[in-house]
């Protein structure tokens, strides 16, 4: 099969995940709870971001055996994270037939300049982005799905909101540009003219765009959907809360009916304790700063 076909198929899988919630899980049991609660996919990792943050130190790809255990436990797609620039970790994830690789700032970066050349892989990649330039640079490198880079493990939505608003503003600006201005914009964003041209013509990214980082409540998820996200990643927000199964199911329904305030109010009742969270000005390490 041609590389171009494979890239299309990988973008297509992200299209199937739209309107869905992708949940971080650390064990097969959690994966089953997530699937039963309506997760469209799970992200298999050894420690959820809140614990990575608490533990400190270097954070790496998870044990393949642990990932395989989760693959065996559920029928929905399974994603896993590799370090930014660590193409060998990505090769290992491809070898165990992961459905999606997240080249993620949640783990310690392995390369402070170069991201993985994702065109060399058959499995798809999702990458984080804080603005349109980062999103398009990751797409240029072969990412077939983008997510905001909201500050993971904090339970604070402010950064994800900042990223998606900025991306929307930058897309609107390119859309309204004269065609002869696009060449210079491509230079400023350090991406090809073709990608900028695509955004200009279609008023959107060429791949699916999800929200990630800091989503803790059904209202957080609906906020990101109303701001234009096409689906939501929930990391620490579920299994760091009082009643994971109930909260997970409520977030799934809130994403489907994200404009129905009455329903979301009802879904938000009696969910138990939300994750405690940390405000962004209280944290020492800004993971979103990793990889530009």
């Amino acid at each position, binding site marked *: 099969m041609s590389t171009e076909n494979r890239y299309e198929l990988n973008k297509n*899988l992200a299209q199937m995940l739209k309107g869905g919630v992708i949940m971080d899980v650390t064990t097969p049991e959690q994966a089953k709870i997530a699937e039963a609660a309506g997760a469209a996919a799970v992200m298999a990792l050894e420690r959820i971001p809140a614990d990575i943050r608490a533990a400190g130190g270097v954070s790496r790809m998870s044990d393949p055996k642990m990932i395989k255990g989760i693959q065996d436990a559920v029928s929905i797609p399974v994603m896993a994270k590799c370090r930014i620039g660590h193409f060998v970790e990505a090769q290992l994830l491809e070898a165990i037939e992961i459905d999606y690789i997240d080249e993620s700032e949640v783990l310690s970066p392995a390369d402070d300049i170069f991201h993985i050349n994702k065109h060399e892989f058959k499995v798809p990649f999702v990458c984080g982005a804080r603005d349109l330039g980062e999103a398009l640079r990751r797409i240029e490198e072969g990412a077939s799905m983008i997510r905001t880079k909201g500050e993971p493990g904090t339970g604070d939505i402010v950064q994800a909101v900042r990223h998606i608003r900025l991306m929307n503003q930058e897309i609107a600006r390119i859309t309204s540009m004269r065609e002869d201005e696009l060449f210079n914009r491509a230079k400023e964003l350090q991406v090809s003219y073709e990608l900028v041209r695509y955004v200009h013509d279609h008023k959107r990214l060429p791949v699916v765009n999800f929200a990630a980082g800091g989503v803790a409540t059904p209202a957080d998820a609906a906020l990101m959907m109303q701001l234009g996200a096409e689906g939501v990643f929930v990391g620490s927000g579920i299994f760091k809360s009082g009643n994971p199964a109930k909260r997970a199911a409520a977030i799934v329904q809130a994403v489907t009916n994200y404009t129905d305030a009455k329903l979301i109010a009802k879904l938000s009742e009696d969910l138990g304790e939300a994750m405690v969270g940390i405000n962004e000005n209280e944290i020492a390490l800004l993971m979103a700063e990793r990889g530009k």
Partner: protein
Amino acid sequence: MGEDKTNNHIKIGVLAVQGAFAEHRTMLEKLGVETFEIRQLRDLEQDFDGLILPGGESTVQGKLLHDLGLFEPLRERIESGLPTLGTCAGLILLAEKLSNDGHTYFATTPVTVERNAYGRQLGSFYTEENFEGIGKIPMTFIRAPLIQRASQDVQILATVQNQIVAVRYKNQLAISFHPELNSDLRVHQYFVEEIVKANQIQAKKAA
């Protein structure tokens, strides 16, 4: 093809609880068909002529259909002959039996389906094959299910590598692949012409 004014009296609901529903709406709108999204019970208060069950994750869609109270009203409509097109996850929702899953959903099409029959994402593929009554069409399979067995009264419309990938049973069109992911409108056109419009004509005759 373009804007076909003869379809402007047709209205089709697209199940929009999760998955690639927007792509189906785009295809139908190119055919001049009016569409709307089904996200909760009150969306079913209007009259409509057909239903699309899109691709996505069948476990998620099945759960949301129940949680949102949509399951029984939709099952009754499909059972009583509402023209329905199910693609990928939609095929799983329609299948009477799933060989590798204890769950079933609407179970209105008498076929046995295997979920994720081609394996994980690395097994996803694109091909072009013959579709009965249409000709050669693009077929995109994403972590796709396939139809292992079909009862005698089910019409087989397409096969790939000797495996059944598209069937028709009464007013239900059930397909393993994703006609909504390519620009070719012919499967949607077939659904509108051969099933939705034919059903309207029959209903008129009966009245």
